[in-house]
């Protein structure tokens, strides 16, 4: 039986070669900036500047980096762990920082915090959840049905087990709604692994509903191609195997990641002769986030 929790699961070995350098570097830039942002969040938590719970996206950010290449003003419904999507969409980072600091100048006046994102400015329509996992999935279906527009919906492997999520996937097929469902499958609900919780794969269930689906690990280049090829005429579900680097809530670490996607991506870009650009991106991101949080 094929091992699914690997960095190469169902990925295309040469996917990067099909992507223009500027696109690949832009995606890497989002990965790096997301991570540098999270490092600053961790520091702020350690220093007790941020006291509300935080849901870090460290480890999964390659998916958001690729996905947001194809979001241009469409409604995006996210789960509790979505810092990476906020940043990768280009939403205001000062408002993000201030939200976590509990300031009135935050995107929701400091009331919503890390897990309840809502950003409806600058041509961005990002709608986070409020606390019930997977609640964003029926909302995405309703929004697409009501607007006739393409909608993006990101949720986790735990959400996939909610009855209303499965109902929603089925209805999206029934109505042939143009929704891209992305399941960030980190194999963990808090610390309970998927295999202990269910015997089925979400992608197979989606296929059973009649929805096109894919199941792969978080190679941004392969994902880029999948997202690019989606025709936006019917729903598509992509179950992406990712590694959660920190606790479900908080900044702690339980153990070593199964794979380090950011390092794999970095090595791939350097092998492609883009070392100088990679270094520049990293320096810029560090400086940007340091200035943002410590000035």
């Amino acid at each position, binding site marked *: 039986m094929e091992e699914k929790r690997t960095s190469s699961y169902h990925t295309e070995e040469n996917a990067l070669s099909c992507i223009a350098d500027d696109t690949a570097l832009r995606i890497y830039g989002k990965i790096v900036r997301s991570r540098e942002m999270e490092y600053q969040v961790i520091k702020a938590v350690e220093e007790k500047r941020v006291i509300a719970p935080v849901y870090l996206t460290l480890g999964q950010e390659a998916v958001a980096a690729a996905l947001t290449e194809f979001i241009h003003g469409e409604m995006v419904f996210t789960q509790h762990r979505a810092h990476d999507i906020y940043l990768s969409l280009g939403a205001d980072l000062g408002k993000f920082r201030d939200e976590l600091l509990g300031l009135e100048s935050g995107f929701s006046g400091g*009331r919503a915090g890390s897990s309840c994102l809502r950003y*409806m400015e600058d041509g961005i329509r990002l709608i986070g959840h409020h606390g019930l996992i997977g609640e964003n999935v*029926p*909302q*995405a279906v*309703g*929004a697409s*049905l*009501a*607007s006739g527009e393409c909608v993006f919906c990101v949720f986790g492997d735990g959400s996939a087990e909610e009855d209303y999520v499965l109902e929603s996937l089925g209805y999206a097929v029934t109505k042939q709604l143009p929704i891209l469902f992305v399941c960030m499958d980190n194999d963990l609900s808090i610390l309970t692994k998927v295999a202990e919780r269910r015997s089925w794969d979400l992608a197979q269930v989606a296929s059973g509903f009649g929805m096109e689906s894919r199941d792969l690990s978080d190679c941004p280049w392969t994902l880029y191609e999948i997202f690019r090829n989606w025709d936006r005429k019917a729903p598509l579900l992509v179950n992406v195997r990712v590694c959660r680097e920190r606790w479900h809530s908080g900044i702690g670490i339980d153990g070593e990641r199964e794979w380090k996607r950011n390092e794999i991506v970095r090595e791939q870009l350097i092998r492609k002769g883009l070392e100088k650009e990679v270094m520049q991106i990293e320096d810029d991101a560090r400086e940007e986030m340091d200035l943002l949080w410590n000035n």
Partner: protein
Amino acid sequence: MEQLTLAQTIQEITRDHLENHNGLLFGQCVTAVGWVNGSVPDCRNIVELPMTDVAGAGFAVGAALAGRRPIFVLRFQDFFTLNCNQIIHYAAISKELHHQGVPVFVRCIGTDAAGPVHSIMLHNIPMYFPGLKVYAPMTPGEYRETWNDFMNDDIPMFVSEHRSAYQMKEELHDHIEDNADIVLYGISDARTQMLLAAEKLREEGLKVSTVHIMKLKPLDVGRLTDAINKAKAGIVIDNGFPICGAARDIAYQLMVKAPGKKVYALSSEDHVKCFNPAQQNRTPDSVKIIGAVRKVLKGECPHD
């Protein structure tokens, strides 16, 4: 021009919203037999939902986020126990949390004598949670006021309807007497029983005030206290269960605002509403209300 019934009024309001204002209506089996007691029009922008009682509310919330101001129809109030998550945990809190409302008009339809689940009334549940308006209109005029309040705001509204009201045409008005022996406050279909009880009590020579409570939340306590300040005591009558119910909550609020006055609560009993006619545990009827009034006037608690 012929006066419309409540059901016709709802149908007219709904048709205008769906045909002329880009509205949407979601519900299960709403275009089937009876079209929800004649309250749903045959027009465009109606979405027949699958039997997805939890996800269905999420579809409506998503539609509200997309700007369609949906009407979400629950043919029995007990369905709200399945559908409430998205309404109370998402739509209701959005305004305070993000300063961006998620306006969903939840038509939640109650009835009596329909068995242990379909008979329950639970407008007390949305009253408990922040961010929702909770109204229980019984007349055409009240429904128009309800709808206008919804359209002039951007927060979700829980509308507790009662099937017994759909053929009503007449408006219901407060009747407040100075130095009344008792003031009766009615909610939902308890209001018609309240009026019957008041009529009989007045025939006995008692001075009885009657006050109709349509807006359960926010509650206009100021309007309601005038009557209790002019009466010896009061009873709030509701069709829900008693514990943590609307009647008890409102009675408490009235007593806080009218120190020295006793206001009691009268509801259905804390028992299952069976199909068996003897155990249907219906809305307090006029006989029960009169009995409660007699106890109160003797200084006794009406529930003892």
